[in-house]
């Protein structure tokens, strides 16, 4: 490759080629046989590598799942109503006998094996039992599936069909091809960790690693990649949004736009991409940001609805007022943010996240109990402000609402923070973003 062509080609593949470069590269490809050959060869090698990375079995599994999704509609609809008798399949034994090697080499569709495992584990069950009798967690081949307690699912032929509730699924990289269905769409998994939730009206997928191909029943398709989620109905828009799990953190702020903007300004100066938005709009955040400052409104219910399930959520709780949102009793008389003269110290961790900052933050090992009045049995202390341990610490607690990010920083915007307070906020932000990125890199 000539230097010019290589430069243009790299920019094209990185999607950063400008209009002039685009025209120049197109001219080279059109007129220079050597350049054209190299461009095509590079594309082909990359495609072959991607093709090669997906195992043959995985491809067959995914194709089988899509066939099932577009196949017997009547049976699929019936499957969503467990009280209705569903027709059992009688052909699998015969087919296994006809092609015994096929049962191990090809028909190892994860869903099929799940079906088989289910039937073997409860021989009296017909395989299409009501979901309540199904296990809540399955580890099978490359797929690990954990169902929420209220998840309703069934195994229809070779497809795992989820009619309501949520599940989390991990598939080892390079072993994609696993597929799931809801009443709205098929989710083809390409080696990933993701979560699916569905009810009668909506299906949603949030991808943590890898990617998931959504094929809605009307044929609309979308590739949801890591860091994005998509919530959709049967006929509404099929558009990905920023995955709430991918947000480095959300700074909780109780309806004080001026203070929130001040927070935003400070954190922007630290180099973070900050978005200030209504907390009821968290599902429609259009692009990747580091930090989100949601403004609570009278119609907000995102931050205090305890009925939405339990997930592990690291919370850096810098303000007692946030405790109320989290269901924690605590003294709210003082605001440590006004305390001057704090100094940041990190005595029992090898983290270097606070380099260059001043203030006081003491990071502790996990698994220490909370000592608030109403301790949460699943919570863990991750970090605390040393001089005010009873009012400021990071905890790992069950998530109280589905719209929360995985990382959460609470601050009190009522008080004007002192320089030390700002230092603590900035350090906390850096710490949480760092934790998030460490989690991502794993």
């Amino acid at each position, binding site marked *: 490759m000539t230097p010019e062509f*290589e430069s243009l080609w790299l920019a094209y*593949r990185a999607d950063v080629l400008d209009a002039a470069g685009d025209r120049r*590269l197109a001219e080279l490809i059109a007129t220079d046989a050597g350049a054209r050959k190299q461009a*095509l060869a*590079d594309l082909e090698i990359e495609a072959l590598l991607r093709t090669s*990375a997906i195992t043959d079995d995985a*491809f067959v599994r995914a194709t089988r799942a899509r066939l099932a999704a577009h196949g017997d509609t009547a049976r699929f609809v019936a499957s969503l109503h467990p009280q209705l008798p569903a027709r059992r399949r009688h*052909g699998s034994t015969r087919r296994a006998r006809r092609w015994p090697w096929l049962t191990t080499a090809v028909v190892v569709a994860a869903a099929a094996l799940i079906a088989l495992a289910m039937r073997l584990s409860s021989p009296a069950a017909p395989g299409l039992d009501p979901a309540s009798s199904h296990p809540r967690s399955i580890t099978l081949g490359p797929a690990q599936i954990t169902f929420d307690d209220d998840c309703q699912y069934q195994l229809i032929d070779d497809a795992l069909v989820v009619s309501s509730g949520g599940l989390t699924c991990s598939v080892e990289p390079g072993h994609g091809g696993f597929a799931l269905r809801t009443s709205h769409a098929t989710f083809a998994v390409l080696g990933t960790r993701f979560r699916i939730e569905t009810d009668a009206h909506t299906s949603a997928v949030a991808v943590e690693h890898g990617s998931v191909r959504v094929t809605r029943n009307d044929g609309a398709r979308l590739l949801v990649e890591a860091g994005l989620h998509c919530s959709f109905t049967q006929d509404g828009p099929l558009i990905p949004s920023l995955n709430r799990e991918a947000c480095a953190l959300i700074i909780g702020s109780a309806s004080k736009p001026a203070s929130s903007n001040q927070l935003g300004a400070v954190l922007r100066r630290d180099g973070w991409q900050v978005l200030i938005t209504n907390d009821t709009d968290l599902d429609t955040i259009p692009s990747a940001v580091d930090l989100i400052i949601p403004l609570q409104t009278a119609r907000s219910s995102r931050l205090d609805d305890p009925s939405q399930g339990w997930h592990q959520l690291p919370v850096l709780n810098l303000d007692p007022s946030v405790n109320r949102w989290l269901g924690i009793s605590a003294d709210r008389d003082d605001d440590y943010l006004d305390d001057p003269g704090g100094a940041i110290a990190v005595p029992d961790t090898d983290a270097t996240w606070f380099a260059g900052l001043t203030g006081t933050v003491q990071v502790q090992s996990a698994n220490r109990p909370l000592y608030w009045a109403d301790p949460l049995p699943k919570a863990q202390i991750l970090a605390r402000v040393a001089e005010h341990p009873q009012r400021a610490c990071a905890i790992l607690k069950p998530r109280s609402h589905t719209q929360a990010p995985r990382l959460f920083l609470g601050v009190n915007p009522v008080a004007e923070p002192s320089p030390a307070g700002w230092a603590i906020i900035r350090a906390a932000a850096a710490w949480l973003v760092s934790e998030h990125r460490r989690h991502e890199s794993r």
Partner: protein
Amino acid sequence: MDDCQLITDAQGGDTDAFCELVARHQGPIRAYLAALVFEPESVFDLAQDVFLTAHNKLADFDATRDLGAWLRGIARTTALAHNRAAARRTRREHTAAQLALALAAEREQAPDERLTALHGCLRQLAHNRPEVLHLLEQRYTHETALSALARELSIAEGALRVRLLRARQILRHCIDTRIAAEP
């Protein structure tokens, strides 16, 4: 069992028979598509589309004909339609359009043996250039994001893109050499 019998069974509604046909023909079809589309990440989906189209039209297919040739025909139509749509929607429309034209003109036939040669070259890299193989595996097998991979290697993303380009060039040279050496 030969393709003909499987096709007959599949035409009778036997999904397992059709999936066996998928298992037999997916490798060549994916390799064929890999040479026909200029969005490498689309190959998996397009190959599935090919087999779904084939499944829908299977009732009209003469079981005594060459299934592979029929599937390649569907794949070619699918890929060209995809390339046209992709060229329309990309912001780099001039380059994309030229690539679509070039692919259509120069890749009438995609040798399946390139996929076989690729596997041989990857084994060769494991012995000769493990660092190159690691890079390719991280990016294409484990689908590690460029940003994460760059952090792991402590290099800029731009430098990583250059390294990946070099790695693909090494691989391409190996594949070409292997194919040229075959009788």
